[in-house]
């Protein structure tokens, strides 16, 4: 990291310590914690929703859908039939290359809990779940402790701080499988079933968990909610450098000097994240490309380094910002091996519900394996291209897993085509001694 980085307003990581030790209730409150909750309870749910809408907060789980708009589809008041309303935090974090929600939950569990209470209040939900991946033992324990501490203080339970509002919160530890992160599959899993995604419509906002109105949001999204309610939409808008508001947890992994995760203004240029924060490439390695936001986003290359990391800019460049955690492809790592690793992941994690994904992804993985091991034929390039066109088309599959799996393949064929051809022409992997292949 270079010496003089500007002092930034970092609402999400202000309680994150260098040694990553967790912030407990006392330390959290000493630093202004649960003020957002009091601010929310002093407002009407409708006013909270309006602030959220005005803030232009977009979902941090990958798709960037405007949170306020998503919430506005939840039936409120008399429009809602009697019964439970649910808020679910998606803490499954299994997108390859993504390591931001773990940081938020392990270092500042109360922030997520406070954000969730404020979100649930805005939606007038009475039950909240944190759906967390099984391997996050520490975060699971810390969140349960935070919930218990909130119950003891009257921040959770009946009649929260005398407001008349009731909310119970539970942590559900999952049992594996990437598809659980897809929001309708997550709901199936929370009902104790196999995690198969559900057809939309009906959308979860209207008919989700147990057929009741349900909102599923990412950890990072929910961590923003009470800050926005307390400090206002204008403040949140002012944090971003470009049209998208707020800060973002950006991450870099791969062969860089200082891999890590940093909260920066939304729209920070890619180059700054990679060169200043991640310290640039390791000695002896050059950057060839990067996936901007996890394993299911399209490659971008050196020519895109000066782009702003925000949803619209990265989208216009032909990729997606996704989770904002970049994976770097260096010049000594085989692009075919790289894409093969990702494709094998998606093939393995297919829930098996629809044929293009269940049978198509293993086929793609097989073709890539053949090419990687020098058994590829020239016509394999066309096969891959056809698979990308068919499996990648939205609507041919039941959920977004399979189209997401095609993104790194289609962009690798575009930017690293000569690497595929060298494998096929030469009958072996030209990178075999380097990298991992």
């Amino acid at each position, binding site marked *: 990291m270079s010496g003089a980085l500007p002092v930034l307003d970092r609402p999400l990581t202000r309680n994150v310590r260098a040694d990553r030790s967790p912030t407990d209730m006392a330390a959290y409150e000493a630093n202004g914690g649960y003020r957002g909750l009091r601010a929310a309870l002093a407002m009407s749910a409708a006013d909270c929703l309006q602030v959220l809408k005005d803030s232009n907060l977009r979902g941090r789980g990958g798709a960037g859908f405007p949170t306020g708009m998503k919430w506005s589809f939840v039936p409120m008041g008399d429009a809602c039939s009697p019964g439970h309303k649910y808020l679910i935090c998606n803490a499954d*974090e*299994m*997108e*390859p*290359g*993504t*390591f931001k*929600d*773990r940081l938020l939950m392990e270092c500042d569990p109360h922030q997520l809990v406070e954000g969730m209470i404020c979100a649930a209040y805005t939606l007038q939900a009475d*039950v909240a779940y944190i759906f967390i*991946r*099984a*391997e*996050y*033992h520490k975060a699971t324990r810390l969140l349960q402790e935070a919930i218990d501490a909130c119950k003891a203080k009257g921040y959770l339970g009946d009649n929260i701080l005398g407001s008349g509002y009731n909310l*119970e919160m*539970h942590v*559900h*530890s*999952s*049992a*594996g*499988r*990437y598809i659980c992160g897809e929001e309708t599959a997550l709901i199936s*899993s*929370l*009902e*104790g*079933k*196999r*995690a198969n995604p559900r057809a939309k419509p009906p959308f979860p906002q209207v008919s989700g968990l*147990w057929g009741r109105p349900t909102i599923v949001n990412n950890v990072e999204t929910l961590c923003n909610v009470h800050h926005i309610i307390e400090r206002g939409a204008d403040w949140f808008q002012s944090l971003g450098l470009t049209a998208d508001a707020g800060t973002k947890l950006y*991450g*870099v*992994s*791969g*062969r860089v000097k200082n*891999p*890590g*995760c940093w909260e920066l203004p939304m729209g920070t240029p890619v180059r700054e994240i990679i060169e200043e924060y991640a310290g640039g490439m390791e000695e002896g390695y050059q950057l060839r490309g990067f996936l901007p936001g996890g*394993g299911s986003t399209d490659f971008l290359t050196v020519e895109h380094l000066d782009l702003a990391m925000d949803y619209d800019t990265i989208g216009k460049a032909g990729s997606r910002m996704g989770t904002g*955690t970049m*994976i*770097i492809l*260096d010049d000594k*790592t085989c692009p075919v*091996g*790289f894409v093969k*690793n*990702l494709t094998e*992941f998606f093939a*393995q*994690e297919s*829930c098996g519900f629809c044929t293009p994904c269940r049978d198509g992804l293993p086929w793609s993985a097989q073709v890539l394996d053949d090419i990687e091991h020098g058994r590829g034929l020239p016509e394999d390039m066309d096969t891959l291209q056809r698979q990308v066109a068919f499996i990648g088309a939205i609507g041919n599959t039941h959920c977004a897993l399979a189209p997401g799996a095609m993104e790194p393949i289609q962009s690798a064929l575009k930017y690293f085509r000569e690497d595929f051809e060298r494998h096929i022409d030469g009958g072996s992997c030209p990178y075999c001694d380097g*990298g*991992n292949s």
Partner: protein
Amino acid sequence: MTDLIPVLSDEELREINAEIAHVPVPAAVAIDALKIVQAHRGWVSDESLQAIARHLEMSAEELEGVATFYNLIFRRPVGENVILLCNSISCWIKGCDKLQAKISAQLGIALGETTPDNRYTLLPVTCLGACDKAPVMMVGEELHENISEQGLGDVFGEDGG
């Protein structure tokens, strides 16, 4: 027939019933119940599965469909410590394949196998959300970061455990 099915322990039942208390139907806690029994017994045997299914008022077949969907529900015995070695992209870039070969050689087991002394089972796992510390693995509940081939001795003991 029912007499042949061993009863779940009081502790297991207590934990499962606590989960049932906040859901509409008992079957909703299928995954929690499988995890509870696995936490006590290491894995989920056919007998355990049948006992859980009966308790949740669902068929054993239906529960089996749930159990086999999730990779962290073990339907076969595992060793005292399960090693979950990340094989996703950032760890692959940083050499997880070579690391796996090294672990396999050191412990004398391939992926999916358990050491004869029952101490370790080696399994691949997808991205563990610690990609900035690649390559990583979990041993039991503990995360090991930035593992090097040399560092493996410290984790498993020089004799390979």
